[in-house]
């Protein structure tokens, strides 16, 4: 028995391949959109993974530190270290800002970490170049996506920092690259105003008779100094001892330290459910519509391809070909087209995913789901075409 479908494809292979490539590009776009959605969720997840924390201790009644601002005194971590079940606790600050390098500036999340605290929560977990921060001031480890190179000098507020290390996939929940700097610098950067504002603030303080009292020399200096100090951090990241559950450690901190504590599960639900919820749903909505549109286009293409061959099908019927054979031919062609399209789409998506400005995550699971969906879609679409083919009158082969 000869393979009718194969022969037909061979007969018009150029048309078949071009249609397949066109379909493939469409499938590629759909896969990419799924990748964009996954990438967005992954950005939020790597933020949690990279912080390497089991607990996030933040200001009471806030959803900090990512979803809401939170500020804690920077000596609170000492008390936390004494709580049962706490193995390590580290002060961290987060501040999203424009980081300048010469003429250009990059939107980045500046993370303040304790310098030299290798393996402490909040630190960059692995590097792709350079080294970790060793000096207690003016060094930075930047993510690759920020576009900095080793040895670059970048400017955060008033101070210049030297890039000493590079990381990969260290991003904020919004996909902004992270730039790690020593904690004290980051605290200062978070609070430090520009020089004009500082000078004006000093003048205002000096003009206030309550602070500028001639009979108390030195009071004004003390007040000015206290105005320009920042003993706050955004969160304390806690790692717990092996063998205890996060909730067991979190509860006493909530109760006795009167602070808000989130476990990883809670933090995940804050990030996914609150922080990126709308934008993820936006992309998800777009993905659904794109998938429906793709399905419709696949159906139309297969239907028109079959209608284009209606005369040949009529001839087949005339010479007594069984309906099953004709249906099989159409189905095989449709599935073949779908598989070809998927292959092209997967290749295209993989190549152009790299040039997207934000992270696009193509999961193998999504690819499998994609090919199943494409095959099912093609099979369903071919039903319509089969119906049209079987309805055709063999007389059409002879008539006009």
């Amino acid at each position: 028995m000869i393979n009718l479908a194969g022969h037909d494809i061979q007969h018009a292979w150029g048309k078949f391949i071009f249609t397949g490539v066109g379909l493939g590009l469409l499938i590629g776009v759909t896969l990419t959109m799924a990748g964009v959605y996954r990438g967005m969720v992954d950005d939020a997840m790597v933020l949690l993974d990279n912080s390497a924390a089991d607990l996030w201790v933040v200001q009471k009644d806030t959803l900090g530190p990512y979803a809401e601002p939170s500020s804690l005194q920077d000596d609170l971590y000492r008390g936390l270290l004494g709580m049962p079940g706490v193995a390590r606790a580290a002060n961290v600050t987060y501040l999203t800002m424009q980081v300048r390098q010469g003429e250009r500036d990059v939107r980045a999340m500046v993370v303040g970490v304790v310098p030299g605290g290798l393996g402490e929560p909040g630190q960059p977990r692995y590097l792709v170049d350079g080294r970790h921060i060793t000096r207690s001031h003016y060094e930075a480890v930047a993510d690759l996506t920020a576009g900095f190179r080793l040895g670059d000098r970048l400017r955060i507020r008033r101070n210049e920092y030297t890039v000493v290390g590079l990381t990969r996939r260290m991003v904020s929940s919004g996909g902004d690259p992270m730039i790690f700097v020593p904690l004290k610098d980051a605290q200062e950067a978070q609070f430090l105003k520009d020089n004009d504002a500082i000078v004006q603030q000093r003048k205002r303080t000096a003009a206030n008779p309550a602070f500028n009292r001639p009979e108390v020399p030195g009071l004004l200096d003390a007040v000015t100094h206290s105005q320009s100090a920042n003993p706050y951090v955004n969160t304390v990241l806690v790692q717990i001892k092996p063998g205890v559950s996060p909730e067991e450690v979190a509860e006493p901190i909530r109760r006795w330290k009167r602070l808000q504590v989130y476990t990883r599960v809670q933090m995940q639900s804050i990030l996914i459910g609150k922080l990126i919820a709308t934008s993820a749903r936006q992309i998800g909505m777009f993905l659904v519509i794109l998938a429906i549109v793709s399905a419709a286009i696949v159906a139309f293409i297969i239907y028109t391809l079959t209608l284009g061959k209606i005369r040949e099908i009529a001839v087949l019927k005339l010479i007594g070909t069984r309906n099953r054979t004709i249906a099989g031919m159409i189905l095989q062609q449709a599935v073949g087209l779908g598989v070809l399209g998927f292959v092209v789409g997967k290749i295209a998506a993989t190549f152009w995913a790299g040039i997207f400005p934000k992270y696009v995550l193509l999961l193998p699971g999504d690819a499998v789901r994609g090919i199943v969906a494409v095959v099912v879609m093609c099979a369903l679409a071919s039903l319509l075409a089969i119906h049209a083919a079987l309805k055709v009158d063999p007389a059409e082969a002879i008539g006009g």
Partner: protein
Amino acid sequence: MKRLHIQGRTLAMIGVLVPLLALFVYVAIRSGPLAPVLVTATTVENQSVMPALFGIGTIEARYTYRIGPTFAGRVRQVSVDVGDRVSAGQLLGEMDPVDLDDRIAALEAALKRAESQVTVAEAQAGDATARMTYAETQAQRYEQLVEARTASAELLDAKRQERAVAETTLASARANLNAVRHEQTRVRSDRDALVKQRANLRLIAPADGLVVSRDAEPGSTVVAGQPVVEIVAPASLWVNVRFDQLSAAGLRADLPAQIVLRSEGGRKLVGRVLRVEPLADSVTEEILAKVAFDSLSKALPPIGELAEVTVTLPALPSAPTLPNACVQRMNGDFGVWLIENGSLRFARIKTGARDLDGRIQILDGLQPGDHVVVYSRRMLDRRARVKVVERLPEGLR
């Protein structure tokens, strides 16, 4: 002919589909979880680590003299300006004496009057002495006359009484003289006190120095203790450095230090740790130290300027070392990824001294010659397949 035609088409189709499939397989393997993780590796080497400590501080003067009046008052004149060099004993300014000069003049007059009174009292005392001497003589004479029965007892009594009166007059005159002399001393002391107060209104430089601040202008009123002029000893500049307590091990006096001033970019000045403060800052978790300049140029660095200080510690004996980028924490354990026969093993390590270039001494857990992962394209785990490359490719890194 037709068969050949079909074969040509088949070939063309194969020519398109096979590369496509090959590309697909490549893409699936390269980008999926099947792809090996690109890593770079290094070898544990015996090396000497030269630890250094890094801190920042501000330039301060060891000796600062805040010169101001000891009484509230008005500034009459300030004779030096910021930037002037002054020597010990030099007049810097003066407070307004208000009525002090007049009071001194009054006391001068009172002193003169007291002197005259002393003279008067001395004269009176002399007069009383003369009278006393005369009365004494008279009394003795009459005693002899009464013995010789040539004068009456009544006369003798009168002379004796005169002598007694002269005695008391003399005592009174002497007492008066003493009182007047004391009065003179009091007035003199009063005057001396006022003169000293007057001198105290002159602001005098206590030591050689540089005027760094002029806080009050002539005519302004200052309270007691409020500085009018501030002087520092220029040779006494030092850097008050703060070292993070986490990385201050080994800090002690006499270590050599490099000082980079913020205004002077890369220029390195040489100094020495003068002392490590016995009191650390418990709030900021820093250790404080004073670093003195070895030599200072004529133009002094601005006091209060930010300075970066690197203190070099003596080199440690050679020991296994690694770059700090190798070190990771996995499930609470501190260690590195060892490459053994192409597979990964997480080795727990103990680390020792570190230097500022990111090298860490390994005290335990590794042998020299072990291959260790430095950089990786993603977080590694035990099951990860790795491919060791010389350098992570640019861009993809």
